[in-house]
């Protein structure tokens, strides 16, 4: 028997109707109710998870009765195929040295995953390395790149009542993951043509995928991922985004809008402010799961950029503090939830130093403030 920690919020609209209305600033019965998941540690540290055998995000989502939302990822269609073989190269106490699926050598903890691996070496440092990897792993004619659209339609029929997104790519985040942070910076400085060829490769693969899927499934939004900013701003200069990335975003945006998708979010932590204009001008009009701590209160961005939407934006630091800190913070979000184009949830995966009690209090306060809007 599955456990229920909280009953579903009451409402008249279907999750799909609610999501679409809320993100387009149309009247809704209540806020769309979702969260972005948890660190792996929460599944053992939070006793209620451990005791009830909850080990995955989808199980937690069901137990908290969140509104359902899905995305079609197309992961094997739009980037490397095949990926590099994942393997352990060496073990050293509680750490292992691995080769990951991007061909990076990395050191990581074997037992926990909160900290990202410590990347030490990429398979690509020169244009010759890139040409070899491109030939072996980025061939657009590889048969397994072709999406099985019939299967997708069966999984997500037109009668569905939940919002469905289509992954619309990463034009630079995946490249960073393939080169390492420093590797990307040196590539930008030493081999700009190679870097642009990587971006173009990513764009062409994405376009091929969209051509195969769009028009056959009625998507509600597009999702993306970059994670290309840190708390000082973007890793690469905004001019690079304007000159190299934006033209490719625009090509993707054209395909999305032609098939009726007018909402496109990108997942980009850190201080995204220097890139917001590029994003908005190129068709990316939503940030997800918008992180407060290294950037600003979501209201600051929403006020400054009409047309921008945000998903996330609940400062996890306040959730760690608990009680009054949670209530006060959520109250600052009320006008933005009412205005529309903003769905509040924890501003990344919820960390284990948010106690179970604080998390439940947060959910209850969220329901009190956003569980009935009209």
């Amino acid at each position, binding site marked *: 028997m599955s456990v229920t920690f909280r009953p579903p919020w009451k409402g008249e609209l279907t999750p799909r109707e609610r999501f679409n209305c809320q993100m387009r600033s149309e009247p809704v019965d209540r806020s769309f109710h979702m969260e972005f998941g948890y660190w792996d*540690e929460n599944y053992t540290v939070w006793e209620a998870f451990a005791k009830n055998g909850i080990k995955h995000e989808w199980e937690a989502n069901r137990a908290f009765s969140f509104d359902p939302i899905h995305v079609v990822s197309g992961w094997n269609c739009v980037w490397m195929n095949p990926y590099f073989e994942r393997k352990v190269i060496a073990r050293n106490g509680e*750490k292992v040295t691995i080769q990951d699926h991007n061909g990076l050598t990395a*050191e*990581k*903890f074997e037992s926990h995953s*909160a*900290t*990202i*691996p*410590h990347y030490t070496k990429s398979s690509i440092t020169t244009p010759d390395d890139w040409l070899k990897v491109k030939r072996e792993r980025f061939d657009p004619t590889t048969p397994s790149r072709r999406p099985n659209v019939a299967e997708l339609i069966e999984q997500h029929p037109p009668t569905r009542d939940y919002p469905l997104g289509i992954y619309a790519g990463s034009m630079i985040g995946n490249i960073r993951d393939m080169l390492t*942070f*420093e590797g*990307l*910076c*040196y590539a*930008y*400085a*030493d081999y700009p043509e190679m870097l642009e060829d990587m971006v173009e490769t990513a764009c062409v693969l994405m376009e091929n995928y969209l051509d195969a899927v769009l028009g056959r499934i009625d998507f509600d939004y597009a999702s993306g991922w970059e994670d290309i900013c*840190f*708390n*000082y*701003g*973007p*890793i*690469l*200069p905004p001019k690079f985004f304007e000159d190299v990335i934006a033209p490719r975003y625009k090509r993707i945006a054209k395909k999305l809008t032609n098939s009726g998708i007018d909402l496109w979010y990108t997942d980009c932590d*850190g201080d995204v402010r*220097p890139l917001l204009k590029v994003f908005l001008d190129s068709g990316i009009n939503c940030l997800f799961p918008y992180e407060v*701590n*290294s950037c600003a209160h979501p209201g600051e961005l929403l006020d400054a950029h009409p047309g921008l939407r945000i998903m996330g934006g609940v400062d*996890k*630091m306040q959730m*760690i503090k608990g009680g009054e800190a949670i209530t006060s913070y959520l109250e600052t979000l009320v006008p933005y939830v009412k205005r529309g184009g903003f769905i509040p949830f924890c501003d990344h995966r919820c*960390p*284990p*130093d948010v106690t179970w009690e604080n998390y439940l209090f947060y959910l209850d306060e969220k329901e009190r403030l956003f569980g009935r809007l009209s």
Partner: protein
Amino acid sequence: MSHLYEEISAALQRGKQNDVKALVEQAIAEGLPAEEILNRGLLAGMDVISKQFQENEVYVPEVLVAARAMNAGTALLKPLLAEAGAKAVGKVLIGTVKGDLHDIGKNLVRLMLEGKGLEAIDLGVDVSAEQFLAAHKEHKADAVALSALLTTTMQEMKNIIGAFEEAGCRDEVIFLVGGAPISESFKQTVGADIYTPDAASAAEECKKAILARK
């Protein structure tokens, strides 16, 4: 002859490591003092880059290639500086705290510290209080720079400062703390001395504090 200093600085700002190497070699051949080449050429160039980085006029790639050029020049000067008995402004131990493998911010701060003429001893990632303490005993550092990116690992900073207190050497060093979840109030909570929101000002404040103690 002093135009060479400006040329070294300019080449470094453009990230041209081969040009920097050639110009430093020329400066040495012309008999310019190594310490002057370092201060008026290499460090002056890094200072410009560091300020531009602080003002968002340049980004991480420019900093990395400038630092790479600086290292190429410094490598040529090192034996001459040692021979002349020149010493760095101060020594700083730097590392990401135990349980945390993030190193981007830490590496940037290290580059900025070196750009200020400080000797940065990089202890890497996942560094325990005992390792920081042992490194201090070995190197007699002036400052210790602690980095953390996670709300769970930033608590380790308190343990490290506590370990220095227990060992009776807290007052021998200046503690800098940094990383995405770190704030001025967190700095006070853990009893550190310096918090700045960015790498360039961390290095600047660190240098100031070291010089003030000397």
